[in-house]
């Protein structure tokens, strides 16, 4: 398993780590059992994402995808943010090892969850896209083998 330099950069110097006290939308996906949790905080004004922060429990890829995802949606409209797919996150990171692709899906889902929270809080229509974390993070394979 090898991470790109971009991934390592976003892992060691993650952008936007932290909480937003008065966040307009908060979403959390993944679960501790599987070793990956992402929590995303959004500050939204006039349909535009003014700020995004995250906290993540997980592997290097989980941290890096969280960091990159927040970077990608900052300043975007909700519509635009909805269109930030896991693929876009991966590409922005110069790719991920196959066993880590799930982490980028988790990042996409975390955005979706935070946006849904925003809509629910504001009585807006539902985002049909987000169906919640499957709870199965096996694909993430965030764990290295210990067979020695």
């Amino acid at each position, binding site marked *: 398993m090898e991470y790109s330099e971009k991934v390592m950069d976003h892992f060691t110097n993650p952008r936007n780590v932290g909480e937003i006290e008065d966040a307009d939308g908060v979403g959390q996906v993944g679960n501790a059992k599987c070793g990956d949790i992402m929590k995303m905080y959004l500050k939204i004004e006039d349909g535009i994402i003014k700020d995004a922060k995250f906290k993540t429990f997980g592997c290097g890829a989980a941290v890096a995808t969280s960091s990159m995802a927040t970077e990608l949606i900052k300043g975007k409209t909700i519509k635009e943010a909805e269109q930030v797919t896991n693929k876009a996150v991966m590409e922005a990171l110069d790719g991920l090892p196959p*066993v880590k692709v799930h982490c980028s899906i988790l990042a996409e889902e975390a955005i979706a969850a935070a946006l849904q929270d925003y809509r629910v809080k504001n009585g807006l229509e539902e985002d049909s896209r987000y169906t919640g974390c499957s709870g199965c*993070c096996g694909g993430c394979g*965030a764990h*290295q083998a210990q067979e020695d």
Partner: protein
Amino acid sequence: MQKQIIYFDHAATTYVKPEVFDAMKPYFTQEYGNPSSIYSIGRSNKKALEEARASVAKSIGAAEPGEIYFTGSGSESDNWAIKGAAFALQKKGKHIITSSIEHPAVLATCEFLGKHGYEITYIDVDSEGLVNSDDVEKAIRPDTVLVTIMMANNEIGTIQPIKEIAQICKKHGVIFHTDAVQAAGNIPIDVKDLGVDLLSISGHKFYAPKGTGMLYIRKGVRIESLIHGGHQERNRRAGTENIPGIVGFAKGLELANENMEAHYNKLKNLRDRALKGIAERIPHIKVNGSMEKRLPGNLNVSFRFVEGESILLMLDMKGIKASSGSACTSGSLDPSHVLLAIGLPHEIAHGSLRITFGEINTEQEVDYLIDSLDEIITKLRNMSPLYEDFIKGVE
């Protein structure tokens, strides 16, 4: 400018000691003959081979050199012992007993046999990571052909009551194999005293080369071969002998034996220093596995609220090489079967770190490790939603 490397992963693999490498060297380019040949260049290799065999026999307390069979790895030895006993005794029965914390080389082999008509009983361990020998005795049935329990665990370093289990097996006439790959070079092994029938070890855990292993087969114990073919290793393991590897294997074990007590004390001292420092500086940790019945160089700690791979990567950036107890076969969704077997919840298993000390390590390195871990765990916890919940919960 090369970064200083601090290697704390000796349970994964060790470097080859210079003395070991020097012993091997002539057999690559000069004394390269085939020991099966009758001419003199082969004969000198034959001699090196038999000297290595005698030396290994002595190192592990075998009754005679003829009980030593050289293989190509610890995994091969494990596979050979288990399949070999199973195939040789099919008429007697198809039941095998093992533990739930074995190395994959044992577990996957049992699983393979499980798919081919064998029944496997997995003995559970207690929260300390120890097998109770009574449980083994209770599991023995008339159709049991093999008990295979590891001597020392590769993740948490716990040492099992091998002598007791061997006595039980003897009483019931069941063959007993132990995977001593992690034990070899770290604690004394005396096969006669232990009373085992089969014992596996691997060279690259005691400063000998990779791709070398050994299976001890007590005289009189019949098992089927794993690698059929030529007459090498008294017709039981085919393949042109890897003379440089075998010579290095024997030399490594010899040095380990001569140096056992100092090695033990040195590693234990480093390990205890590391544990003390970590426990003093970092809250919310859990030490995994018995601290008493344990290899001297093994430390396995869980750091709550953080994930193991992240710790490893951050340690790596500081030049420190360790291993994650949270690790599991890639692509799988579960953390270490060993940590789960001692009752750790998944999330805590995910946050574990294995640090295994070796002869090159120093106290300064340990202190640097402690400082680094303090900083890394703090950083990771500060970005962990689990830690956030915990802090908010306790506030």
